[in-house]
């Protein structure tokens, strides 16, 4: 099976042109092609994971094969050798499965959600293209290929956010997402350029082998920091997080697939792939950990005040991604990847649930919902299950993975980050249940009535909900040969269950739920009064710390101002100089033309006078000068 891993991205990659050029008019067929391709990839991924775990392929002994993509031989040794290769180890095998699973479910779900949309076929085309790029990214065996697919993933994100391109907000959001990611990719690209400068290769394994012999640690740190810019952008970490909430303008299945489960996790995946690089420079690791931790807290605080159901989930995604990055930073790749896996499942569940609600109500403001539990039983049940997982209630998936991160921070001595993580866990359960109590229970605030979604939408919800319950056990501390013995860095380690951490985080989560119930469920504490009391804080949070405004100011005033200045300079200074040369010539021509009186005698006279002078000049020496 591993030998055919390259087929995994190829199926959906072929589905895209087929849908775009052949079946675009035939909606059902398009959907079938897209779903069929991703289903094939899913089956193949299952096989790959199975073979990986049973045939002794480990993190140290991956399977790698490659074709030459572009090579410049050079006179003596290779100048450049870029390979299109496949690297299969447990890390990529797990990731493949996660991506194909979520993608498959989302595509099935989309059949219902996108029903009747004029761009139905195109949507499946884009989804296929995205899946292909994402799977390519996962399988990449070198930085170049990773960057290649990284950018393609960004493109698909752009296309899908802007799917409703007739909405100006969607068009703006897609632009913003692409440009912000471009800024991050600029850093990423520079980062692996520095690596190439030092080691003359892009290949992960060759880099890992050469890393101990790095010529210059400072340069290596620069490279690592720059590469980290990539994840900051793609995984929406502070300060390049601004695109993710706006990205919710895209169709909800897209938000579930791309902006919750897979693409935003690419940043985390990159950190895991290049973990050896980060692990070798503690200072950069620390930076990674603090950026992650800060983002987790930062995003959670913003989520407290938002009213849009998808935006709340978006901020929660940011916050959870912060967790994962923090896990990478504190040195536990296992915990980060484990949380990535479980989070992909329950966040996809939450987004699809939100999509189900939006599909029924055509409304995204939670304060205009209410009482949905009566109308949409399946959706409500699965959504609550997802929220419980996110909040970290045992024994659901989120509990185990979040716990492992907190444990890693705690046991590796990052007490500050551990406390921060616990606070975030409290905030998370609070804002999630604020959403649930407001939207699903309580009174119908705007009198909107929902209806349960069709089967093709609820079945994926149920599958994901089931997985939410069971997926945690693959990595639970008491399970032998679980997740931590597949995906690890260095030694396969097995953290002892720490009951202090477990109990604290569970209690904190329950506290959050209770508080949310008090305020929004029973309404014994007035939310308005609280907002009034801490008015300034509420305003700042509601406006997302005014970071968007700051960027907008920077772009409008500084960048566009500079551009206008350059334009003026070009048109008036540079062009002025060259036009000035032309004008001088023209002006002197206008003046000099008066020399040409047009009178023939004068012309003839001047001509012969010149002859005389010329003859004098030439002939004088010949005839012996003036004697």
């Amino acid at each position, binding site marked *: 099976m591993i030998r055919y891993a390259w087929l995994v991205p190829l199926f959906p990659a072929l589905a895209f042109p087929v849908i775009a050029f052949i079946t675009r008019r035939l909606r059902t067929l398009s959907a079938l092609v897209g779903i069929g391709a991703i289903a094939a990839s899913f089956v193949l991924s299952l096989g790959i994971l199975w073979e990986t775990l049973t045939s002794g392929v480990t993190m140290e002994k991956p399977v790698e094969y490659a074709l030459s993509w572009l090579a410049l031989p050079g006179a003596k040794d290779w100048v450049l050798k870029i390979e299109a290769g496949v690297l299969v180890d447990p890390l990529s095998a797990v990731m493949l499965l996660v991506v194909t699973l979520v993608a498959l479910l989302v595509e099935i779900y989309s059949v219902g959600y996108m029903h009747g949309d004029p761009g139905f076929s195109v949507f499946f085309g884009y989804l296929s293209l995205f899946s292909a790029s994402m799977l390519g990214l996962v399988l990449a065996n070198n930085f170049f290929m990773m960057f290649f697919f990284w950018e393609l993933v960004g493109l698909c994100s752009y296309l899908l956010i802007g799917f409703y391109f007739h909405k100006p907000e969607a068009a703006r959001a897609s632009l913003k997402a692409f440009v912000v990611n471009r800024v991050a990719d600029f850093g990423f690209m520079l980062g692996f350029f520095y690596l*190439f400068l030092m080691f003359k290769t892009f290949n992960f394994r060759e880099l890992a082998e050469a890393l101990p012999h790095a010529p210059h640690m400072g340069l290596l740190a620069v490279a690592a920091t720059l590469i980290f810019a990539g994840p900051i952008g793609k995984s929406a970490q502070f300060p390049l997080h601004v695109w993710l909430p706006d990205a919710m303008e895209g169709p909800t299945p897209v938000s579930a697939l791309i902006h919750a489960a897979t693409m935003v996790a690419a940043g985390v995946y990159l950190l895991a792939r290049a973990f050896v690089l980060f692990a070798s420079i503690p200072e950069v690791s620390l930076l990674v950990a603090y950026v992650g931790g800060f983002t987790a807290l930062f995003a959670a605080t913003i989520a407290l005040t938002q009213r849009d159901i998808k935006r709340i989930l978006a901020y929660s995604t940011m916050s959870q991604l912060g967790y994962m990055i923090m896990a990478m930073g504190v040195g536990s790749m296992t915990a980060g990847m484990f949380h990535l896996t479980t989070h992909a499942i329950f966040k996809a569940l939450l987004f699809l649930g939100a999509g189900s609600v939006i599909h029924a109500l055509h409304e995204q403001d939670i304060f205009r919902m209410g009482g949905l539990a009566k109308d949409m039983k399946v959706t409500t049940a699965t959504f609550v299950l997802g929220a419980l997982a996110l909040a970290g209630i045992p024994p659901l998936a989120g509990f185990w993975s979040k716990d492992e991160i907190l444990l890693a921070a705690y046991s590796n001595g990052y007490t500050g980050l551990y406390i921060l993580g616990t606070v975030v866990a409290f905030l998370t359960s609070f804002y999630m249940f604020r959403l649930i109590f407001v939207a699903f229970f309580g009174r119908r605030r705007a009198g909107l009535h929902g209806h349960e979604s069709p089967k093709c939408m609820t079945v994926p919800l149920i599958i994901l909900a089931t997985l939410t319950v069971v997926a945690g056990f693959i990595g639970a501390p008491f399970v032998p040969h679980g997740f931590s013995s597949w995906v690890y860095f260095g030694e396969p380690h097995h953290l002892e269950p720490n009951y202090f951490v477990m109990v604290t985080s569970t209690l904190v989560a329950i506290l959050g739920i209770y508080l949310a119930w008090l305020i929004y469920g029973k309404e014994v504490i007035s939310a308005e009064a609280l907002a009034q009391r801490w008015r300034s804080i509420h305003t700042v949070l509601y406006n997302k710390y005014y970071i968007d405004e700051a960027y907008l100011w920077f772009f409008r005033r500084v960048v566009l101002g500079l551009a206008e200045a350059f334009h003026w300079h070009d048109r008036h200074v*540079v062009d002025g100089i060259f036009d000035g040369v032309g004008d001088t010539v023209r002006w002197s021509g206008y003046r000099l033309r008066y020399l040409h009186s047009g009178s023939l005698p004068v012309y003839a006279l001047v001509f012969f006078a010149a002859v005389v002078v010329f003859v004098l000049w030439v002939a004088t020496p010949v005839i012996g000068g003036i004697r």
Partner: protein
Amino acid sequence: MSFPLLTAILLAPVIGIILILFIPEREQLTIKITAAVATFISLVLSIYVYVAYDQAAGGLQFLEDRSWIPALGVNYSVGVDGISLPMVLLTALVIFTGVFASWDMTHRVKEFFLFLLMLVTGVFGVFISRDLFFFYLFFEVAVIPMYLLIGIWGSTRKEYAAMKLTLYLLVGSAFALIGIIALYLYAARQLGYLTFDIQTLATVQYDIAFQKFVFFLFLIGFGVLVPIWPLHLWSPDGHVAAPTAVSMLHAGVLMKLGAYGLIRVGVFFLPEGAKFWAPLIAVLCIVNVVYGAMIAMVQRDLKFVIGYSSVSHMGYVLLGIAALNTLSLSGAVTQMFAHGIMTALFFALVGNIYHKAHTREIARFGGLAHQMPRVAAGFLIGGLASLGLPGLHNFVAEFLIFLGAFTREQGLFGGLLTYRTLAILAILGIVITATYVLRVVQRTFFGPRKEAWDHLEDARGVEMVPIVVLCATLILFGLFPSLMGDLIYSGVAPLVAKIEAAGTVGGIF
């Protein structure tokens, strides 16, 4: 002697010209079909030469040699190598699609296609010439029809733009001519006989002071055509004024003549001179990249955006030339090809829109993707190529150039600035590019449907030819870059060998 393929490529448009002369003006369709067939023959032959070129052997192939003015050492000799062959293919692709892009032309059709074919004959000639005399001759043949094409069929201050362009280019070519004559005479003194043959001239050892001087002449002469800042202003004005097919050829191919000349004549003959002036080129090209991109951001006319983006993108080519190593020079040649295709695509699409909407003002558009989805898709692909998205050919080019410049260890201004710093600034350029390209896409094609543009029809029929051919080229070479990379490497390798063999020369800064 085998069939003279290269001469056939050159003569196909000439025969087209002769045939069109005999077609009455009113039979417009016949004229267009004749032009299309002539350029199609060139295209097919170019593709054949491209495929048949022996990459393993490298060097100049498909040679033809005929004595022309023996007394002056002028020979009609043609041949292609790994640098010129992609350019020949580029020219063939752009002119073939350009003919289809001007299918709607109704004003003085006969003369238009005559001049267009004449122009392209000159361009082909420059790329296949192995004789400096013919190189220059064809160079001039390419410039003059441009004046008429813009002056007669243009728009938006066409007379001014035509005059400006012609003056800039002629002044530039005068500098180049002085340089060529200097080379010729110097070589004649060394060799003892007169010759314009490029390979022979390249074997001559020119002394350093001479190299510095003559390279400077070439830098100005060919630099105008690239265009290098601050000699760039003819290009946005010219692009905007020119009719669609001419814009395509102009931005797609003519600008590459400059870069090609700089590589083929400048760097190849005068490696020490190139090393001396490289820092200047490197600094100026960054101005090109950043300054051009910034200005493109605030343009209100679609064509101006693309015009300035060309200035910006050709800066990458210059950076590739300035860095003078295998990676960067391969990248520069790749970029010449890729940018040519991309910008031709852009101009074809803008021409299509302009022809139907009679305006190019971005602010008046919006939501055009509703009425013209195919045009929008083409434009998006062009835009993505422009911002260097992987999977499209421009990415390969820019990547090679950046990596080449990035890995070059040399300081400028006494170490105050390095090629690495410049490469970083150039990479910043692609961020700016992304911003302005996508902003244009957003403001032109996205947004709510505007009733005012409901009469616009989407591209179809022959209008699809440029879009499909050019997009397919970008994607093909973007996904499989070694199809062209190996060829370009075979052309660049001797060049780099020559640069490395040349003595060390301190840069101007």
